[in-house]
C-alpha cells in the first residue's frame, strides 16, 4: 500500500485494532462451531433394532431423553428393560415449570412457581431446530404437538448498556444500517481508481448492483435517509392510506456509532445453522416430551432412585441404589447390559469398574454454567406496547437474553418472559445468589430495556443449573483438546456398559445430541449382545 491517505500511521493502527476486534466476534462463532453447536444431526429415519437374544436384559440409568430413547428402542427390539431415575418425574433436563410446581435446589432453597394456568418456563431446552430430526421423530411418535418457535424477531431489541445512552435499538435497524454502511464503503472501494484496474468493468458493475440491492443504497451508491433504506430499517411514520398515510423515512445510525456499539456482534446469531427458521416447540412446554415418554415407559421406570454404585462382571451389570422417597435402605438391580446416561458431573463420583480410558474420559469434562429466570407480568406489554411477538432481545447486561413467548399472542391476561438466560461469568454470579435475588436482579436489569417491568412484574422463578440436584451443571463443556483425547473412549463400550447423553455427542446441550447418542450406543450394544447371545 504505497498511496495511503494522510494520517496513515493512525489508520493502520486502527485497521489492525479493528481486524482484531472483528476477529474476536468471528472467533466466538468459530468456537461455538467447534463446540459442536453448529453440527448437523446424524439422525437417520428410524431403523428399528430387532431380534434381541432370548431373555436378554438391559438396565438403563437415567430417564432423560437419552435414557428413554434407549429404553423405548431396546424394549421394542425385545429386550427386558428397567430404568432407574433420580427425580420423581421423567425427562431430566427436558423440563417445564408451571404454576403450582415446587423446585428445591442444592443448598435446600425451595421455590414455588406462581404462574397463571397455561403459562410456563422451560429451564432447560426450549427450541427444536427443523433439522433435529431425531427429536421431531419422537415427538411425532409420542403424539406431542409442535408449534412454531420464533427465534429471530427483527422487531426485538439489541441492547448495550454503554451504547446509544443505554437505549435499546431494534434488531431490524441495526441490521439494515450495518449492511447499508458496509455496502456503501465497498461500493466506494469498487469504484476507486486505486484498485489499479484489477477488476473488469462487468465485474465492477455486477458488484455495484449487488451492493445497492444488499445495502438498500441510493442511485449514487450511498446509504442515506431514504424510503428504500426505511423499507429495511423501519420508518419514522409507517406508510398507510389516505392523507395521513404518507411515509416518513427514518435516519440511519452513523457508522462510527454503530461500530463502536458492537451490537453487530449479535447479528449473525440467527444465521447459525441451529438457529435458522423454522424452529419448533411442543405445545404446553418442552417438558411435554419427557412427560409423554414417561407415560409410554411407565412400567419400566423406578423413580427416586439414587444410583450409588455400578459393578460389571463377565455375565452382567448390577446397580446399587437408594430410594430417596422411602427409607428402605439399599436396593440392587441386575441386567445383562447397561446403558448409563447419568451426567458425567455425577457419574464421576459413582464407583464403577470400567477401564482407565473411559474413567479418564468421564473425569475430563467440566460442566457449563447457565441460569434461566422466568418472569410473569400482569400484561403482555411487549406485545401491546412494543409489537414484539416471540423472538429474543440480546443485551450485554448480565441477563444476556430476554425471550418472548412464541404462543398466546393477543390473548390478554398475564404473560411469562424468559427474563434471563445467562452464561459464563454472569451465570456463575447468578448461581451464587439466592433464587429471590436472581429474580429481583433479572427485573432490575430488564427494566433498563422495558421500563414497564417494575409496574407490571408479578412473580418469578429462577433455575441455576449448577444448583440442579440431578445434573450439577448445565451440560458437558468439551474443549477441543479433551475431545481429541477422550471422546471416543467415552463412547466406546466398556465390557457391558455403554454411556449415552448429550455429553456423548457433538451437539453439547442439545436434546438431539442425547437422541443420536442413545441410538448410536444401543446399535453397538445390540451388535455385541447379539454376538454374545449367539456364542452362549
Amino acid at each position, binding site marked *: 500500500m504505497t498511496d495511503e*491517505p494522510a494520517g496513515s500511521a493512525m*489508520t493502520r493502527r*486502527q*485497521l489492525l485494532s479493528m481486524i482484531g*476486534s472483528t476477529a474476536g466476534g468471528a472467533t*466466538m462463532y468459530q*468456537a*461455538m462451531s467447534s*463446540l459442536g*453447536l453448529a453440527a448437523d444431526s446424524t439422525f437417520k429415519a428410524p431403523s428399528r433394532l430387532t431380534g434381541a437374544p432370548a431373555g436378554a436384559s438391559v438396565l438403563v440409568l437415567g430417564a432423560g431423553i437419552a435414557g428413554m430413547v434407549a429404553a423405548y428402542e431396546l424394549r421394542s427390539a425385545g429386550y427386558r428393560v428397567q430404568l432407574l431415575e*433420580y427425580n420423581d418425574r421423567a425427562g431430566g433436563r427436558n423440563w417445564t415449570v408451571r404454576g403450582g410446581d415446587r423446585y428445591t435446589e442444592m*443448598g435446600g432453597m425451595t421455590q414455588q412457581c406462581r404462574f397463571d394456568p397455561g403459562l410456563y418456563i422451560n429451564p432447560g431446552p426450549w427450541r427444536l431446530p427443523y433439522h433435529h430430526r431425531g427429536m421431531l421423530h419422537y415427538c411425532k411418535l409420542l403424539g406431542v404437538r409442535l408449534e412454531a418457535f420464533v427465534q429471530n424477531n427483527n422487531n426485538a431489541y439489541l441492547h*448495550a448498556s*454503554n451504547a446509544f445512552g443505554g437505549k435499546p435499538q431494534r434488531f431490524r435497524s441495526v441490521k439494515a444500517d450495518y449492511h447499508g*454502511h*458496509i455496502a456503501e*464503503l*465497498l461500493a*466506494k*472501494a*469498487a469504484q*476507486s481508481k486505486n*484498485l489499479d484496474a*484489477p477488476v*473488469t468493468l*462487468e*465485474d465492477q458493475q455486477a458488484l455495484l448492483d449487488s451492493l445497492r440491492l444488499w445495502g438498500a443504497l441510493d442511485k449514487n451508491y450511498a446509504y442515506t435517509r431514504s424510503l428504500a433504506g426505511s423499507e429495511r430499517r423501519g420508518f419514522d411514520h409507517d406508510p398507510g392510506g389516505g392523507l395521513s398515510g404518507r411515509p416518513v423515512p427514518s435516519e440511519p445510525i452513523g*457508522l*462510527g*456509532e454503530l461500530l*463502536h*456499539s458492537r451490537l453487530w*456482534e*449479535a447479528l449473525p446469531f440467527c444465521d447459525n445453522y441451529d438457529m435458522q427458521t423454522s424452529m419448533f416447540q411442543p405445545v404446553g412446554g418442552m417438558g411435554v416430551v419427557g412427560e409423554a415418554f414417561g407415560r409410554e415407559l411407565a412400567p419400566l421406570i423406578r423413580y427416586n432412585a*439414587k*444410583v450409588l454404585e455400578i459393578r460389571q462382571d463377565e455375565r452382567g451389570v448390577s446397580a446399587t441404589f437408594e430410594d430417596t422417597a422411602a427409607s428402605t435402605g439399599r436396593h440392587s438391580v441386575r441386567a445383562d447390559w447397561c446403558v448409563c446416561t447419568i451426567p*458425567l*458431573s455425577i457419574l*464421576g*463420583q459413582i464407583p464403577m469398574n470400567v477401564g482407565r480410558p473411559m474413567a479418564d474420559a468421564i*473425569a475430563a469434562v*467440566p*460442566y457449563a*454454567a447457565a441460569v434461566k429466570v422466568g418472569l410473569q407480568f400482569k400484561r403482555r406489554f411487549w406485545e401491546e406496547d412494543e409489537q414484539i411477538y416471540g423472538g429474543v432481545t440480546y443485551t*450485554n447486561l*448480565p441477563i444476556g437474553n430476554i425471550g418472548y413467548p412464541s404462543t398466546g399472542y393477543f390473548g390478554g391476561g398475564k404473560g411469562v418472559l424468559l427474563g434471563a438466560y*445467562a*452464561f*459464563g*461469568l454472569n451465570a*456463575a*454470579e447468578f*448461581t*451464587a445468589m439466592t433464587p429471590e435475588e436472581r429474580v429481583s436482579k433479572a427485573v432490575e436489569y430488564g427494566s433498563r430495556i422495558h421500563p414497564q417491568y417494575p409496574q407490571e412484574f408479578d412473580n418469578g422463578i429462577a433455575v*441455576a443449573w449448577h*444448583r440442579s440436584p*440431578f*445434573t*450439577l451443571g448445565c451440560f458437558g*463443556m468439551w474443549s477441543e483438546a479433551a475431545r481429541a483425547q477422550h471422546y471416543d473412549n467415552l463412547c466406546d463400550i466398556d465390557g457391558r456398559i455403554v454411556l449415552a447423553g448429550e455429553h456423548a455427542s457433538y451437539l453439547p446441550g442439545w436434546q438431539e445430541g442425547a437422541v443420536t447418542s442413545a441410538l448410536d450406543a444401543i446399535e453397538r450394544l445390540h451388535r455385541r449382545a447379539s454376538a454374545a447371545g449367539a456364542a452362549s
Partner: protein
Amino acid sequence: MTATPTRWSRALSAAMLALLAAAAAGPPVQADSASFFAFSTLDAQSGEQVYRQICQGCHMPDGKGATGAGTYPSLAENHELASAQFMALTILKGRRNMPAFGAGHASGVFFATPPLSSEQVAAVINFVRTHFGNRYTDVVSVAQIEELDRSP
C-alpha cells in the same frame, strides 16, 4: 471472466481503509472495548467477594457444599486444603466437573467461565483457608499462583 480472490481482497483492503476514515469522521461515541457478549471479568477485590460472587454457587454460603444425585465437596474444616498448592491447581486448572478459572486454562469459548486474575485466585484461597473452620496460617502469594498457572 471473473476476478481472482487476490483482486477482490485488494478491493476489500481499500474498503477497510475507507471504512475507517468514515468511522473516524463520525460523531463522538461511547467506546466499548469489551465484547458485546459476556466475556467480562469479575471485578471482585477481596477473597471474600470472590467467594460470595462465584464459589458459593456450588460450595454454598456456609462452605459446606451440598448433595443431590452427586456432591459438591465441603470446604469447611477440609484437611485437603492443608495444601494451598492443591487448592490453587484445582481452581486454576479445574477438576472433573469443576471448570478451570486460571487465565492460562479457562478457555475463551462462549460458555466457559471467565478467568480470575492471579490476585483474585490468591485472595480467595487465603480467604477459604482461614474461614469455614479452616485455620491455616501460611499465605499463598500472587507470584506462586502465576507460576502454577504457567505450569502445563
